[in-house]
């Protein structure tokens, strides 16, 4: 034990000497959904390469993308697809898929919903748990995320937007009666205490305090998201400015390679994400 710690101390001090000249700093900003995962990876990275400081900030997908365009951040994190005008200017890498799970209270007898039912519930047409196989006489307490949130956008695109039998595209709005909270954690906390609640959060956030519902008969598991049979998922992107990132710094390339490496992927898997490495460059 003592030997190990002194060895660590030794490397520390050596590294400290080397890095006195200049410490490279990488600034990352964007989606609060991606932030915790990149935060974990950057901690690992900093342990390995002590001459680099990785600064991971939140702010939301849109702000992160804007920061990369402005040059105030080296890398942006986004939990939504880039808009056409953004995709024109920026490179991006899909690093992971994150399943979105509908959750209820543990003691709620309902353990599955069809996409059709979810649509009906969130558009306000179905208001009673009895209509979907639960205890009748209990009104839904719906939870959703705030307008503009990546999580909400995925839900709106994958569930609330669909093509009907006549081939028309229908866009339903989430009912204004639903309660709006501003984080996955807050929604989980409220749902875990309310027998009539229904909400949706990241697969990585689901634990035994709540019940994750099957969607169209498919269980929300890592494997099913990976195979693509579980339909409700979103992609996490890292966004780069081609003009700044590559020319200026190898540290940024290096860090991204670390995320895509086995070490990086392992961290993502441990956090219930499905690692992907799809690079979209100009």
């Amino acid at each position, binding site marked *: 034990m003592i030997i190990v710690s002194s060895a660590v101390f030794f490397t520390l001090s050596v590294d400290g000497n080397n890095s006195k000249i200049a410490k490279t700093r990488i600034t990352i900003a964007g989606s*609060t959904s991606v932030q915790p995962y990149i935060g974990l990876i950057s901690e690992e990275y900093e342990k390995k390469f002590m001459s680099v400081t990785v600064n991971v900030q*939140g*702010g*939301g*997908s*849109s*702000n992160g993308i*804007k920061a990369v365009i402005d040059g105030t951040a080296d890398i942006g994190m986004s939990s939504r697809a880039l808009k056409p005008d953004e995709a024109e200017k920026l490179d991006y890498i899909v690093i992971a898929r994150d399943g979105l799970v509908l959750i209820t209270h543990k003691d709620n007898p309902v353990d599955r919903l069809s996409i059709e039912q979810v649509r009906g519930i969130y558009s306000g047409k179905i208001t009673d748990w009895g209509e979907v196989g639960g205890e009748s006489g209990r009104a839904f*307490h719906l939870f959703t995320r*705030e*307008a*503009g*949130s*990546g999580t909400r*956008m995925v839900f709106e695109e994958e569930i609330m937007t669909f093509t009907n039998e006549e081939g028309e595209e229908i866009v339903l*709005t989430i*009912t*204004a*009666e*639903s*309660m*709006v*909270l*501003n984080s996955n954690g*807050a929604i989980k*906390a*409220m749902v875990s*205490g*309310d027998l*009539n*609640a229904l909400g949706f959060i990241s697969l990585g956030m689901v634990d035994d305090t709540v019940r994750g519902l099957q969607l169209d008969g498919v269980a929300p598991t890592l494997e099913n998201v990976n195979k693509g049979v579980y339909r409700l998922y979103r992609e996490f992107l890292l966004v780069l400015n081609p003009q700044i990132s590559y020319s200026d710094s190898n540290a940024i390339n290096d860090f991204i390679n670390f995320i895509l490496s086995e070490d990086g992927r392992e961290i993502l898997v441990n956090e219930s994400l499905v690692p992907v490495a799809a690079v979209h460059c100009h």
Partner: protein
Amino acid sequence: MFLIFALTSISVLAVITGFIFMQGFPLIADVGLRDFLFGTTWEPTRGQFGIGAMIAGSLAVTFGAALIGIPVGICCSIFMAEFAPGIVRKIFRPAIQLLAGIPSVVYGFWGIMFVVPFIRNYFGGPGLSILAGSIVLGIMMLPTIISISEVAIVSLSHTYKEGALALGMTHWQTILAVQLPAAKSGIVAGVILGLGRALGETMAVIMILGNATALPESILSPVRTLTANIGLEMGYATGVHRQALFATGIVLFIIIMLLNIIAQHLTNRGDMIE
């Protein structure tokens, strides 16, 4: 020298005001003042900007908080000014100031851990509701009301009280018929500043009101306030959506400004009486 510092603080106010109005006004002009203020559909990502339900939400929660905070606050200030023995007052006064010093996120946390489940279990509904918000905001406005009202009562000239007692009135009659009316303007000013605090509160409100954008049906319904609307969505808002949040800020700004002007006016009148 002092003039320069004074001008700095004023100019900060001017810059902030100017900025909010500049950012928010184009949207109000676009949507139309009437649709913006009285429209009840808020779908900012689909170009629907009506903050009517949120104005209603802010007013409902503030009114509910007033129902709880005003009677408790005024009674407490009477107790402190007239009945509390020295030692009790010495404990109460800093305790109440401490109440003002608790960060609002702590109030919100307390609300979500205790008040919300209590309402959900005993009154029904989701718990995140006008009622929960009113209880927490009612407590949060107490320190403002108590300290200003107490000062208003204590600082009355002794002649009021002594005269009334000399005429044979009991202590209670003196308080109700002489001291309270005489301190009225100060108390009302305290109440209005307390209301301003409730109206401007953001963090706690986001946590315990449920933030639904529909018009509330009962005191057990979740609502969104103007402040919560800004606090909740600013992280993601871009373009017109962001303008709409600034426009929400303008409305809030004007309401709070009006409240403060009324409070100021009343306090000034109080000075004149003395």
